[in-house]
C-alpha cells in the first residue's frame, strides 16, 4: 500500500499545478515590458537608455558618422570591404550594410525616446518633480529631433514615428513623409524641448543650449539664415563656450568636456567607443582601414591652411598617415556632436548669405586664428562662402560634415563630380524595403 502511495505521488508530481509552476521560468537579466517607467529611478534610467542608443556603435559611435566623412573627399579606404569603397566612390548600393545598420540604430533611438516622451509624463512619484519630469522629457525630445535630422539629411523624407512600439503591429507600414515634413518635425520637437529644458551647461546631455545648437544647424540646412545666425549667436555669446587653444586642446591628451564642446557623447572603459579601431595603425591596435587621403594630408600639413589642425593626423612606423582624433586606450574617445567651432562657422555662413560680409568674415577668422593661420580676406559673398566651405573641410577633416555640407549647398557636381542628383540621397536599406511595402525607395536605386 505504501508503494502505491508513493507511486501516486509520481502522479501528484506531474499534476497540472506543479507542472505549471515547473514551466514558469522567468529571466534574471531582463524585466517584463509591462512595467518599465513607473517612478523617478526608472524614468531616469530609461532616459539613459536613450543616450545609450545615441552612443551606439552603429549611430554616433562609428557607423553613422562614417557616412558623413567617407562619402566626402578627405578619407581613403585601405581595407578589403567593398561596401566601404561604395561611399568613397559615392555609388552606394541599397544592400550596403553600413546604411542598413545606421538606419536601424537611428530608429531604435527614436523608439527609446518615444517611450520616455509617452510614459514619463504619466508617472506619479512624489520624488519625480515636475522640473525633473520636464527635463527628462525635454532631453528625449531633443534626441528624437537629432535622430530625425540625421535621417532627413541622409535619406530625405522618412516615416515619422512618434509613439512607442508596444506590439509588432505598430509603427510599421507607414509611408515616408517628405524631407520638408521631416525637418518640420525636427523643428517642432526642438520647440517643444526648449522650454522643458533647463538653461544650464551640460556638455554630455541635452540642455536648452544643446537645442539652440541643433536649431542653428537645422536653420542653416533649411537656408533660414537669420534664424541660424540668431541661435548660433545665443551660444557664441555664452561665456561657457569658447574656441580652446591650441586647436588640439579639445581632444588631445585625453581631454573631454572642454569649453569647445557644446554636446559630446560620453564613453568610458565600460561603454567603449570602438571608433579608434578604424583609424589607428596596427602598432596602436587599430586597423587603419580609414585613413586621411593625400589631399587632406597636404592641406592639414600646409602651415597656411591646416595650421594647428595638422595635429589631427600622425605618421605610423611605416611612414603612413593616420587619423588621430580617436586614439584613446581604453577606447573612451568622446564623439563630438556640436563644437563651438561649428557654431562659429554656421554663423559665418548665415551671415555671408545675408551679405553681412564683415561679420561673417570675423566669425570665420575666429576659427582661422585659433588654428594659427592668417585671417581670410574675402570681400564678396561667393568668395566668403567658398572660403567657409574650404575652412569647414579642414576644420572638420575627420568629422562627419563634408558630405552633408556639399550636398546642402548644392555643390556636389562641382566638388565631388557627382552629376546624378539622385545620388545626393542615399538609398533606403534594402532590408527595410523588402519587409515594409510602404517604404518607397529613393529614385535611382
Amino acid at each position: 500500500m505504501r508503494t502505491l502511495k508513493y507511486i501516486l505521488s509520481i502522479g501528484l508530481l506531474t499534476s497540472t499545478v506543479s507542472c505549471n509552476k515547473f514551466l514558469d521560468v522567468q529571466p534574471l537579466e531582463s524585466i517584463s515590458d509591462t512595467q518599465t517607467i513607473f517612478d523617478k529611478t526608472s524614468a531616469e534610467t530609461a532616459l539613459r537608455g536613450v543616450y545609450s542608443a545615441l552612443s551606439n556603435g552603429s549611430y554616433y559611435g562609428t557607423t553613422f558618422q562614417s557616412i558623413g566623412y567617407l562619402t566626402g573627399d578627405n578619407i581613403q579606404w585601405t581595407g578589403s570591404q567593398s561596401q566601404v569603397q561604395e561611399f568613397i566612390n559615392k555609388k552606394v548600393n541599397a544592400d550596403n550594410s553600413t546604411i542598413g545598420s545606421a538606419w536601424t540604430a537611428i530608429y531604435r533611438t527614436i523608439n527609446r525616446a518615444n517611450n520616455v516622451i509617452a510614459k514619463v509624463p504619466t508617472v506619479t512619484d512624489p520624488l519625480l518633480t515636475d522640473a525633473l519630469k520636464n527635463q527628462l522629457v525635454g532631453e528625449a525630445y531633443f534626441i528624437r529631433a537629432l535622430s530625425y535630422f540625421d535621417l532627413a539629411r541622409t535619406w530625405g523624407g522618412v516615416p515619422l514615428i512618434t509613439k512607442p512600439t508596444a506590439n509588432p503591429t505598430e509603427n510599421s507600414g507607414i509611408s515616408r513623409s517628405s524631407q520638408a515634413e521631416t525637418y518640420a518635425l525636427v523643428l517642432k520637437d526642438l520647440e517643444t524641448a526648449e522650454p522643458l529644458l533647463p538653461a544650464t551647461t551640460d556638455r554630455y546631455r541635452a540642455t536648452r543650449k544643446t537645442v539652440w545648437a541643433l536649431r542653428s544647424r537645422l536653420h542653416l540646412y533649411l537656408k533660414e539664415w537669420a534664424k541660424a545666425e540668431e541661435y548660433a549667436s545665443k551660444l557664441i555669446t555664452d561665456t561657457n563656450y569658447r574656441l580652446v587653444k591650441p586647436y588640439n586642446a579639445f581632444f588631445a591628451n585625453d581631454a573631454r568636456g572642454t569649453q569647445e564642446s557644446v554636446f559630446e557623447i560620453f564613453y568610458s572603459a565600460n561603454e567603449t567607443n570602438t571608433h579608434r579601431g578604424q583609424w589607428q595603425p596596427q602598432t596602436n591596435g587599430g586597423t587603419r582601414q580609414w585613413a586621411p587621403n593625400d589631399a587632406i594630408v597636404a592641406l592639414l600639413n600646409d602651415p597656411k591652411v591646416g595650421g594647428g589642425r595638422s595635429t589631427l593626423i600622425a605618421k605610423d612606423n611605416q611612414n603612413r598617415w593616420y587619423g588621430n582624433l580617436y586614439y584613446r586606450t581604453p577606447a573612451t574617445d568622446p564623439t563630438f556632436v556640436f563644437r563651438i567651432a561649428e557654431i562659429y562657422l554656421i554663423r559665418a555662413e548665415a551671415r555671408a548669405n545675408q551679405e553681412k560680409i564683415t561679420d561673417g568674415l570675423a566669425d570665420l577668422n575666429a576659427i582661422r586664428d585659433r588654428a594659427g593661420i592668417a585671417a581670410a580676406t574675402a570681400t564678396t559673398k561667393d568668395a566668403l562662402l567658398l572660403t567657409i566651405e574650404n575652412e569647414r573641410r579642414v576644420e572638420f577633416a575627420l568629422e562627419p560634415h563634408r558630405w552633408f555640407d556639399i550636398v546642402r549647398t548644392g555643390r556636389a557636381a562641382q566638388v565631388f563630380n557627382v552629376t546624378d542628383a539622385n545620388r545626393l540621397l542615399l538609398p533606403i536599406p534594402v532590408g527595410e524595403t523588402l519587409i515594409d511595402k510602404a517604404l518607397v525607395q529613393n529614385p535611382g536605386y
Partner: protein
Amino acid sequence: MKKKLLVQFLLAILLIPSVIIAQNADATINSTLSGRVLDEKTNEPLIGASVQIKGTTHGVITDAEGKFYFKTGQKLPYTLIVNYIGYELKEVLATTSSISISLQTNAKQLSEIVVVGYGTQERKNLIGSITKVNPLEVNAIPVGSIDAQLQGKVSGVQISSPTGVPGETVNVRVRGATSINADNDPLYVVDGVFINSNSLQTIGTGGKATSPIADLNPADIQSIEVLKDAEATALYGSRGANGVILITTKRGNFEQAPKVNFNVSYGQAKAIKLWELTTGPEHAQLVNEWWINTGKDTPSLNRTFANRPFRPVSEGGRGLPEEQQTYDRLSEAFRTATLQSYDISLVGGTKTTKYYIGGGFNSQEAILKPITFDRASFKVNLDQKINDRVQIGVSNSFSRTYRNQARAGDGPQGGLLQAALHTPTYLSPTENGVLVGRAGFDNLTLLLNNYDVNSTSLRYIGNLYAEAELLPNLKLRSSWGADYNNYNESEYWNTFLLLGAQGGLATSSISQFTSLLNEQTLTYRQKIGKKHSLGVVVGNTLQSDVLTRTYAEGRGFANNSFKIISSAATTTSTQSWSKSNLASFFAKADYGFDGKYLVNFSIRADGSSRFGSDRKWGYFPAVGAAWRLKQESFLKDVGLISDLKLRASYGIVGNQNGIGNFAAQGLWTGGAPYQGSPGIAPQQLANPDLKWERTNQFNVGLDASLFNSKVSFEINYYTKYTRDGLLQLALPSTTGFANYWSNAAEISNKGFELNINTINYERAGLKWTTSFNVAQNINKIEKLENPLRYGSRDLILQQQGTPLYSFWVYKQLSVNPETGNVVYEDVNKDGQITVADRQIVGSIWPKFFGGLTNNVSYKGFELSAFLAFQYGNKIYNHNKFFGEGGGARDAARVIFASNNARWQKPGDITDVPRPDGVNVNNYRDGGSRWLEDGSFLRLRSLNLVYNFPKAIANKLKADALKLYVNGTNLFLLTKYTGLDPESSASSDQNAQGIDLGTPPQPRSFQAGLSLTF
C-alpha cells in the same frame, strides 16, 4: 513543493525493489541443467546468448565458453528458448541434464536488434524508418566527433563537414530542414540522456564553433540508430522534429570473462591542395592595370601610367612588376598534422553484475597551425541485478577536451588565413628584422608564434536507472540523467598582435551548461494466445536546462609575461543566466497479429517554459502500420523473396529548440548605461501567442530481401510539412526592433531514400559485400511573409517559394569583349544594375546525395572502401571573391591566380572582367561569378585490416590481434575551384554554403593496432 515531491518520488523508486524482493520466495530445486550454445557452422561458442525456460521468467546468459547452467524448480523435460543477436531464435526440448545447442545464423537485416525510442526491437517488426550504423565502420575517420564520421552512411541524412578542423560543428540534416530560426539539428540521446548539441563557444573564430558532440569518445559507442520518420521519433515528441540520433554506449554481458581491448593508432594529415596565388610580378602587374583603369574611368583620381604603384624605385615607386619578389605565406600557415589515438577498455560480467570501463586519449592537429584537438575520456557503465526482477545501473562518461583554437575564418584581427593570404610582393616576414603587418591584418609569423587562444571542455554525461518487473510482463523503469558541461575559454593577445597592440588583451569566459533529466516508463508486453501480441509504454520526462556564463576581460598589461586578467590595468566583466524547463508525458501502444500485421499508436504531450502561458503544451500523435507480406500464404513459398514488408506512418512532431528561453515575453534590458550610470531599454517585443512549431510527417516504405537474403533493400518516400514555423520575423526598423519571435513560416520537405545491401560473392572464405544509399530531399519555403537575408553580403535569401538557403546574387551573364566590363542580368529592365536585380540562383541543397561502401574479406584480411557523394548543390566561393579583387585590394590581399585570366584588350573572351576598383560593378559583392557547383565524389575512407590467426595471437597471450591502415579523402572529384566543396564559413544554420577562410578537409593516413586479451 516541487522538491518535496521529488524526494517522495525518489523514495518510491528506492522502495519498489524491496517490495519485490520480499515477494521472491525461495523455491524447491527439482533439476539442474548445463549446456553449451554454439554456432552451427563454425562450432565456435556463442558468448552472451540468452537461454530461457519456456513458460517461466527464468533465463540465463551463456558465458565466455558458451556455457550455461540452470538450477530450477522445473522438472525435466522442458523447452528452452535460445536467443542470440544475428541468429535464428531456437526452441529446444531439454530431456537430459547436459545439452549442446547449435544456432543458425540469420539473414542479418531481419533479426538485427534495433534500438528504438524507449526500447529495442527486431528489424523485422519495425514500422518506423530507422537506420542503424555500426560505429566500427567509421571510427577510423579522424574528424573528432561521431556525427562527422557518419557522413554518407545514413540514407536521407545529409552530413557535411564545413571545416577541416577536427572537433568543430558539422551540419546534420535528417530529411532536410524544417525551420528557419528554431534548430534543425537532430536530438542526440546518449544512453537515455538528451545531450546538448549546441556549441558553448563564445570566442570569435570567424564564424566557426566547436562541437559538443566531440566530447564523446567514438570508441565507447556500441551502436548508433538514426530515427527518421514520425513513427520512430514520436515518443520524443517535441524533440524529434529533426530526427533523433540514439547513441548506445558499450556495456558488459552477464557471465562474461573479463576482456581487455587495447587500440592504438597513429597517422598524418595534409591538405589535398591549397589556393593558387599570383606571383609577386603577376600581382604587381594586376595592381598597375587596376590603377591605370580606375584613372581612366575617373580622371579626377589622377591615376596614370606615370604614377602607377609598381614603377621604378628611382621614380618613387615600389619597383617594376618583374622586380617583385614572391613571398609564400600559405605554406608557412599549413602543416602536415599528426594524429594519434589510444583506447583501452575492460568489459565483462558476473552472474549479477556487468561492466564496461573505457579510457581513451585522442590527439589531432589541424592542418592549419596552431590548431589542435585533444580529448581524454573515461567511461564506466555498470549494471547490477538485485534479483531476477530488479536491476539498477549507471552510465557515466567523463571527458576533457582541450583545444588550441585560432580564427581561421572571417575578420581582420587575428585572422590566420587573412594573414596568410596577404600581398605577396612586399614585406618579407622579417623585413629589416621587424615583423610588420599591413592594412589591418596581422603579420603571419608573429601570429603563428604568439597565438594563445584555447578552450577546455569538461563534460559529464551520466544516467542512473532502476528497472523492476512489477508483474510478469510489466516493467517499470526510472532514470535520472545529467549532462554537465563546464566550458572554459581564454584568450591572450600580446603586444605583437593587432588585438593586443595596446598593452595586451586577455579574456576569460566560463560557461556552464547543466541539464537534469528525470524519466519514468512503464512497459507492458504480452502475447495473447498464439497470434496476438500487445505492447504498451507510458511514461513521463522532466527536463531542466540552465546555462550560465561569466566573462571577464583585461587590457593593459605591464608586459607580455603578465597574462592573467587580475594583472591588467582595466578590467570589465559580464554575467548571464538562462533557463528552460520541459515536462512531457507519453504513451505508445503496439499490436501485432500473427506476425503479419503490425500497428501502433503513440502520443506525447510536451510543456515548454518558453512559450506563452496558454500555449505551453503541445500534443504530438503518430500512427504506423506494417504488413509483412512474406508471412502471407501466397508468398511463403516464393523462394526468390526472402522477406517483404510494407510500412506506412503518419504523425506530428514539434520543435522548440534553438529559440530564446524567454522568446514569448516582452522584455526590457538593463544593459543600456550612460555616463557610468545604469540605463534600461526595450529589448524584445512580447508574443503571448508564441507556440510550438509542428511538422506533419508521412512516410511509406518497402523493405525487401531477395535471393536468400543476398540482396536486400529499403525504400522510403516521405513528406514533411511544417506549420507555425518558429521565426524571428523581421520587423521594419521603424518599430525600433529588428524582429520578434513568431510562428510565421511554413516549410515543406519531401524526398525518397534508397538503401541497398548486397552480398556479391561468398565462397571459399572470400566475401564481398556492398552497401549503397542515395537520397533526395526537396525543400521549399511554402509561406514566409517577408524575405530574410543571411550571410556575408546578404548572400543567402530565405524567401517564399524557393528552398531554404538559396543564393541571392547578381547574375553575371558575360564579360563584354569590347569593354571588359561585366554584363549582369538586368532583371527589372530599368537599364541599371541595382539591388532590385539580385535574384535567386540555386541553393545549397543537392539533387541527391549518399554513400557507397564495399567490403571484401578473405581469411584474415578485410578491405573496405567508402565513397560519399553529393550532386547538384551550389557553393559560394567567397575566398575567390576576395582573391579576385582585380587589384583593388593590393594593400590587404593576395590576388588569386584565376585573376590572371582577366580581360586586357578589346576582343578578349573571358569571364574575368577588367581590373577596375572604382566601377565596383565589375567586382561587385554578390556577383554570381563566384557561385559554383559543389557536387563531389570523395573516397572518404579506405580501410585495410589484417586479423592475425588465433595461433599467433595466442602466442602473444592475446585472444585477438589486428593491424590496420586507413586513408581518408584519398581522392576528391569536384568541379569546385575552391579547396573543399563542403567548406562553409559560418556555423550559423542560415548562412551555410559560403566558403571563406576555412581549412579544407585533409587527406590522412593512419596505421593502428588492436589487441584483445
